[in-house]
């Protein structure tokens, strides 16, 4: 993009590029887009209240349903974290809590936040809402299956929540559910609790598979005219790759859940070794607990990227729009997403360095783990280079994006520490690990979710969220989150183990009392600050100012629907035709500082658009 760029040349280059990927012969018309290949989608329009709002087949409504259900589980997870922090910071105030309760809260907090909150929110919520709109489709390709997907998720959540009310309560085995202790007497919730957890996970996998097939086929086979894969917004790329990962990783979870259910119900010994209990040999014998760890982490590690990749994609779009600059290195970003996705299947055993596996195994997995830092770092550089010399608007969305970059780098660097066997072993099961993964896959994706909510709320509800409240929400969350997790790194370094109900009088614990109290207070405040968003949404829905169409002056298709909020079928009479990528911001020579994806080349013939 040098200043001496020859306008004429850029026009030439662009028109030939548009034609290259298509039918073969060069068409002299520069606005040419290949004719439609796929017939108009046969949509089933709702006839009743129930069909329109409950068993709805419209991906947008399903997206909102997913979002609200996930947020509900997220609030439950938040309350559990408060209870844990109350015990850790002020045990004298938490007299009602036994050690069993604490383990149950740890377990449920982890499982809810990772699977039922983040995964469902990114793929089910944002995926459903944004994919059809962004690729220019009328709806998901299998609307009925999509509806079933949500309700399967809903049942999974109901079963999970039911485990709080059964005798013995929910499982308290830690979110990794390691056998043998998970299903043995003595572990809280080893009766009905663990059973409901396993059933709920299986239902979640089945429900997700239905949704995931929809996301993948919609992206691969139902794009609008002119929408090539390399013209898709990075949000779609992130969600797409995450869905591929989920389709290949969830099977391992399903299988381990089935096997453990059988171990529990039928006394099989898939994962159960010979066990002596109070001098008595149990019925079990000959199984392999390590096998479960392999299966679980073959799911568990891609799961981290199932959460992270949509966040990467969404944040790229938000940064580009709010810095009014094209995303730096679009193709590099795409390949980085795909590369991270591929590599994520070869790193799982870095969660198992202390499981007693062969040291050479650890060496291999440490190497792959460190390699994955390369594409990840490329993405971080590209975000920063997108911001560089951009026309940055410091609004709430941008603040969340900046918060994300900082937090992600922070959590990523501690990840490099933990990826090395020799560093990981002494830090295993300490608060350093807790701080690391909360930073990198808790707070960082959460910041993107918040930014995305402020960004897309005008589209979903047609009203603008309050910026003042949004900034309060951001600053309290950002500073608060660092107050929680920075001290935790230090706690980890001095060796405080995680998942402990109480530290008793161990010598190094007395010195951490003040720090634990500080972290707890910060956690209470940050948790409470999230309700600013809830308040903001309710207030905005009631009295907020109406949003104009495309308030952020973005280019991607979701802002160019026939109505705001978009109706069933998304685009009115005719589907949009795409001529460019969604990142033509601040193009020299253009009338506005943005060129929508639907703008034909002839309309902007005198500008220096990027080749896409």
């Amino acid at each position, binding site marked *: 993009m040098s200043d001496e760029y020859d306008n004429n040349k850029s026009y030439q280059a662009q028109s030939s590029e548009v034609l290259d990927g298509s039918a073969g012969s060069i068409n002299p018309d520069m606005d040419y887009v290949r004719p439609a*290949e796929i017939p108009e989608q046969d949509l089933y329009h709702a006839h009743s209240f129930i069909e329109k709002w409950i068993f709805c087949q419209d991906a947008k409504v399903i997206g909102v349903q997913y979002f609200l259900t996930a947020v509900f589980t997220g609030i439950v997870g938040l309350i559990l974290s408060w209870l844990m922090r109350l015990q850790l910071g002020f045990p004298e105030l938490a007299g009602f809590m036994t050690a069993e309760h604490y383990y149950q809260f740890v377990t449920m907090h982890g499982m809810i936040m990772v699977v039922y909150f983040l995964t469902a929110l990114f793929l089910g919520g944002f995926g459903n809402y944004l994919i059809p709109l962004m690729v220019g489709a009328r709806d998901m390709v299998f609307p009925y299956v999509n509806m079933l997907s949500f309700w399967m998720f809903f049942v999974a959540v109901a079963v999970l929540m039911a485990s709080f009310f059964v005798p013995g309560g929910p499982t308290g085995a830690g979110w990794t559910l390691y056998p043998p202790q998970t299903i043995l007497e003595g572990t809280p919730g080893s009766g009905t609790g663990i059973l409901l957890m396993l059933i709920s996970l299986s239902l979640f996998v089945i429900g997700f598979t239905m949704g995931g097939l929809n996301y*993948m086929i919609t992206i691969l*086979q*139902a*794009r609008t005219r002119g929408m090539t*894969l390399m013209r898709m917004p990075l949000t779609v790329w992130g969600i797409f790759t995450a869905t591929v990962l989920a389709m290949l990783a969830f099977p391992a979870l399903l299988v381990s859940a089935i096997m453990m259910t059988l171990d529990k119900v039928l006394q099989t010994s898939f994962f159960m070794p010979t066990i002596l209990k109070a001098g008595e040999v149990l019925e079990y014998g000959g199984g392999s607990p390590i096998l479960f760890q392999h299966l679980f982490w073959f799911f568990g590690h891609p799961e981290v990227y199932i959460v992270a990749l949509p966040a990467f994609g969404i944040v790229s779009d938000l940064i580009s729009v709010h810095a009014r600059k094209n995303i730096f290195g679009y193709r590099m970003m795409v390949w980085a997403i795909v590369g991270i996705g591929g590599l994520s299947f070869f790193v799982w055993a870095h969660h198992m360095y202390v499981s007693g596996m062969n040291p050479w195994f650890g060496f291999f997995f440490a190497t792959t783990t460190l390699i994955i830092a390369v594409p990840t770092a490329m993405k971080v550089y590209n975000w920063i280079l997108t911001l560089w010399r951009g026309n940055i608007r410091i609004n709430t969305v941008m603040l969340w994006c900046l918060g994300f970059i900082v937090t992600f780098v922070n959590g990523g660097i501690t990840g490099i520490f933990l990826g090395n066997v020799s560093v990981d072993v002494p830090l295993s099961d300490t608060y350093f690990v807790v701080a690391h993964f909360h930073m990198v896959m808790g707070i960082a994706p959460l910041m993107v979710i918040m930014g995305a909510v402020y960004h897309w709320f005008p589209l979903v509800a047609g009203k603008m969220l309050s910026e003042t409240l949004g900034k309060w929400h951001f600053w309290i969350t950002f500073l608060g989150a660092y107050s929680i997790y920075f001290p935790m790194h230090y706690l980890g370094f001095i060796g405080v183990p995680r998942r402990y109900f109480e530290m008793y009088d161990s010598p190094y614990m007395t010195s951490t009392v003040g720090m634990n109290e500080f972290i707890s207070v910060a956690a209470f405040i940050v948790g409470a600050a999230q309700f600013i968003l809830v308040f903001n949404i309710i207030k905005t829905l009631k009295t907020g100012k109406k949003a104009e169409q495309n308030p952020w002056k973005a280019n991607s298709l979701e802002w160019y629907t026939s109505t705001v909020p978009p109706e069933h079928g998304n685009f009115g009479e005719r589907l949009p035709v795409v001529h460019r990528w969604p990142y033509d911001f601040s193009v020299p020579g253009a009338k506005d500082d943005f060129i929508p994806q639907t703008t034909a080349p002839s309309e902007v013939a005198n500008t220096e658009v990027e080749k896409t």
Partner: protein
Amino acid sequence: MSEQKIDGFELRPGFKGMASDTGSDQTMFKGVHWGKAMMWIFLLSDTFVFSCFLISYMKGRGSTIVDWPNTSEVFSLYVGGVPVPLLLIAIMTFVLITSSGTMALAVKYGYEKNRKMCGWLILATAVGGLTFVGMQVFEWSKLIHEGVRPWGNPFGAAQFGSFFFMITGFHGFHVSIGVIFLFIYTYKVFAGHYDSKKRGWFTKMKGDYVEIEILGLYWHFVDLVWVFIFAFFYLW
């Protein structure tokens, strides 16, 4: 590969063709029905499910503390007092593979809009599947009668029964689902739903003969999985 035309779009052969399809707009797999693409991807995911089962089985079998039962004895049938190893399994496999053949023919006649032939062949496939499930029930009850249980058995390692019932059960479940759909499709073909493009009961989508091919993909997959289970369980 000859050049094909789909909706006025020339498909180029080879790697170049693949690259140009991938780089083009609208669809990546040119002319492939949505449902068919979905089934392929679902089967990929399902492959991972069965792979996890079979790899777990290999790991489990490799690390038991008691010896694994002698499979050629356990799985043998007595014909006139002489044990014939793998007799039942051979018949089961033959039936299932044959049903794959009738399925493929059903797809062919479906696309030729030969309603009668298509219907009879799907019915034959369904009956084949049902026979397979029936024989599996027989095999299960025979083993249970001999004292094999998920938590233990008189022949050796307890994991034998665990893995056997779990994996063949999961596969049998797949076959059963397939059989149910085959019967439904038999009805739909004979009732002419695919010729009249009648809308589905639940999905409200127009019927088309491509649905038979989609079910066929699933059926062939279930067959293929059986081949692996056969190899790993009965021949090892």
